[in-house]
């Protein structure tokens, strides 16, 4: 069974998540889909799996165009998707989960089928155990078998290795290879180069919603990184910051979340200095930013700001001390979608009387709109603004005096003009003495805008001066060159 995607486009409000993507998946192949978070991989796969509908373009199976209105329709045609988070029912048993969505039949037959399928891939299940007692890896295996029992022959896996152990990963890979040998197709979505190299025989790279390259594997990492992050351009020299007084000191910082630990990081950021954070998504940049903003508890180490120790204090103490954090998920974490621009201006005032002074708030909102070129009025609801306007509004809402500004993907999803405007603002802040730390997936942006760059690989930082950095060098470091995986 050969699946073709032709000119698929999907927009969300003003964002083109997937932009005229064409892709052919041949039977018996494990096809990798590589790209950074937000590149459009998951959206594209959800269209193929019938979860979203495309605005434009067609899906064809063996040359025949098909339209899916629900995941069930896609499954009837043999296309099934293993989502990033297991979509199962933790309070039902393994067997009950297995039978869900399957045509009615006897429990005994279902049990036999499950055991036979499990034996084929050397998975072991207690069929009567509750799914909540299983590990994520086992739940994935169960979901895989469930899809196969439904007759799925094109299997989509969305970042399947995020939360499973190395042993389970090997088992999963072995099962996928076996499936491919039997003539099924596997679409393997990932942002990890090493994984794509380990299992895929062909890879398509997506960036900013478009296909930026396709290559048979093996293929040099540098080539793939260039496809993922864009091309090398002539450098624009950034005026170097002369050794300034330190604003933020981080000493022996250790932070961790469920997946990752950043250990013993020490860093001093001077006034007006810009530090870029590079790395594949989930390598430690976000942990550092959130710890520095006071949003994550610190396991070890100290964070000081202008010689005040902030370690262990709450986020609002950080705010009062002059630390600000702009998240990449602007509407999810940064702005309140249903409120207007003026209401945000009122909301951002930290000291205030009981009564809102609407006339002065409106004036302030209008000033912000003019100054930051937000395309809207004080009464515009924030959800009606485009991504670039939302980002400019967030910048405009920041307090006048800031010691440390932390940004996550400050120009993601923005067009070139908006990106330039954002950087103009940030440069002005830096000239006033604000220290800036930003994470980005755009290697040129990192090289161009930073004084120093910290490259993260699996939580391990490498600090280098921007003068020594190039897109090639960053690409190699991001891919984990010279380190044990």
């Amino acid at each position, binding site marked *: 069974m050969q699946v073709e995607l032709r000119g698929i486009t999907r927009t969300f409000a003003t964002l083109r998540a997937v932009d005229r993507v064409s892709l052919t998946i041949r039977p018996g192949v494990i096809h990798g889909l590589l790209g950074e978070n937000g590149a459009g991989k998951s959206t594209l796969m959800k269209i193929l799996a019938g979860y979203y509908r495309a605005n434009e373009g067609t899906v064809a199976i063996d040359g025949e165009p098909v339209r899916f209105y629900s995941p*069930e329709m896609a499954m009837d045609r043999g296309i099934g998707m293993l989502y990033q988070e297991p979509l199962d029912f933790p309070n039902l048993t393994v067997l009950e989960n297995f039978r869900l969505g399957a045509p009615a039949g006897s429990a005994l037959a279902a049990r036999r089928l499950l055991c036979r399928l499990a034996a084929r891939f050397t998975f072991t299940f207690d069929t009567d155990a509750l799914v909540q007692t299983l590990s994520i890896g086992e739940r994935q295996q169960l979901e895989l078998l469930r899809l196969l029992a439904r007759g799925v022959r094109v299997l989509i896996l969305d970042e399947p290795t995020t939360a499973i152990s190395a042993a389970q990963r090997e088992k999963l890979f072995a099962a996928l290879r076996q499936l491919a040998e039997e003539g099924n197709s596997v679409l393997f979505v990932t942002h990890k180069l090493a994984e794509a190299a380990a299992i895929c025989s062909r890879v398509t790279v997506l960036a900013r919603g478009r296909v930026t390259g396709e290559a048979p594997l093996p293929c040099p990492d540098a080539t793939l990184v260039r496809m993922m992050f864009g091309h090398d351009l002539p450098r624009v020299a950034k005026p170097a910051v002369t050794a300034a007084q330190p604003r933020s000191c981080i000493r022996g910082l250790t932070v961790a979340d469920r997946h990752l630990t950043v250990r013993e990081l020490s860093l001093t950021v001077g006034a007006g200095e810009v530090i870029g954070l590079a790395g594949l998504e989930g390598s430690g940049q976000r942990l550092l930013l959130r710890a520095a903003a006071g949003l994550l508890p610190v396991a070890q180490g100290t964070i000081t700001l202008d010689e005040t120790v902030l370690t262990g204090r709450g986020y*609002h103490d950080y705010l009062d001390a002059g630390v600000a954090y702009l998240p990449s998920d602007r509407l999810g974490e940064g702005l309140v979608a*249903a409120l207007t621009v003026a209401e*945000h201006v009122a*909301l951002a005032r930290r000291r205030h009387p009981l009564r*809102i002074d609407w006339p002065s708030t409106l004036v302030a909102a209008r000033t912000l709109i003019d100054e930051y070129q937000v395309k809207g009025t004080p009464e515009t609801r924030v959800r009606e603004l485009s991504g670039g306007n939302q980002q400019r509004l967030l910048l405009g809402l920041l307090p006048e005096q800031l010691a440390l500004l932390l940004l996550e993907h400050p120009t993601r999803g923005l067009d070139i003009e908006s990106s330039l405007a954002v950087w103009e603002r940030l440069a002005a802040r830096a000239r006033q003495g604000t220290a800036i730390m930003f994470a980005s997936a755009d290697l040129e942006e990192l090289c161009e805008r930073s004084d120093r760059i910290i490259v993260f690989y699996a939580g391990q930082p490498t600090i280098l001066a921007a003068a020594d950095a190039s897109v090639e060098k960053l690409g190699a470091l991001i891919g984990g060159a010279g380190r044990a995986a």
Partner: protein
Amino acid sequence: MTRRHTLRHRLAITLALWLNRAQRRRLAGLLIALALAALVVAVLGASPWHVAELIFTGSFGTPNAAAYVIDAWVPLLFCAAALLLTFAAGMWNIGIEGQIVMGAVFATGALRLWGAILPPAAALAVAALAAILGGALWALLTGALRFWGNVNEIFGGLGLYFVANSLTVWLVLGPWRRAGIASTSGTEPFPPALWLPDCAGFPVGPVELLLALAAFVLVAFLLRGSHFGLRLKALGNNVEASARLGVPAVRQLCGAFVLAGGLAGLAGWTQVVGATSRHQLYPLISNGYGFLAIMVVLCAGFRPWRSLLIALAFAAIAMGSLQLALQLQLDSALGGVIQGLLVLGLLTARGWQWRQRKRKVWQWTR
């Protein structure tokens, strides 16, 4: 025929010009709800017109009937004002009934302690403060369970409502029982000195009515023109982003619960000392006003001024439908059926609007 045709068209055009899309949908929802109510009445063997007429004359037909409507409007107003605050913050304050009960309990306790010592006006004021304290405490407990115990405010509130009711029964049968009587009918009624005044024999209490209206104005101002209200709205929409923008989320939400509980407590106070109340504490003293107020606020789409009018309409239906039992031998619960249908009709109309914005999962699955 042609004349009627053009008339109908003219009416449709006029409506289209007057009303925007959302308003037309709401009107359609209202009409459907009324049609369904008429159907229910017809199935019960009565004439819908007659029932409508009875409900209207039963609520506004005589000055006394209108007075009873206002008496029911007062606690509804306190509760609707309370709920506007918690709904703005995205919280389902189902426990409002318990807060009314605790307001009544605290008011009764204060009067038993100081009613005979203080001058009546001071005693009544102290009772009001005690009622605010009682309701606020109960609401704060719901909030604390939500934010520190991770118990959803719906379940916490409901649980605390049952606790409050059981407490009332224990008080009425135990420490506060009437001398020589062991019954759940209530505590010893307070002497007339401790009643709020009526309007010269007309059964409406001006004090509680004015207080309720004032509370309503206060809440409307808070939601429209204060930083407190704006922060509540922001939290109700997106807790994460609001906290990032510097809103102290827990303190703010607990503040909403405390204010709402205080207002609900005042509703309980009116049930103990109000001009037309029974002047005693008795089980289930909240009389369902809290739940009814939830319907009012939902119906009004969380808008203050609309809530004011809808609360009046609901009070009228509740009082007017008492006539049904007397005149038509229909159960007065029919009033509740009509109220419920109105809420469902209006909510469905809002659901249609919502559907346009966002396709829900059950709308694309077979």
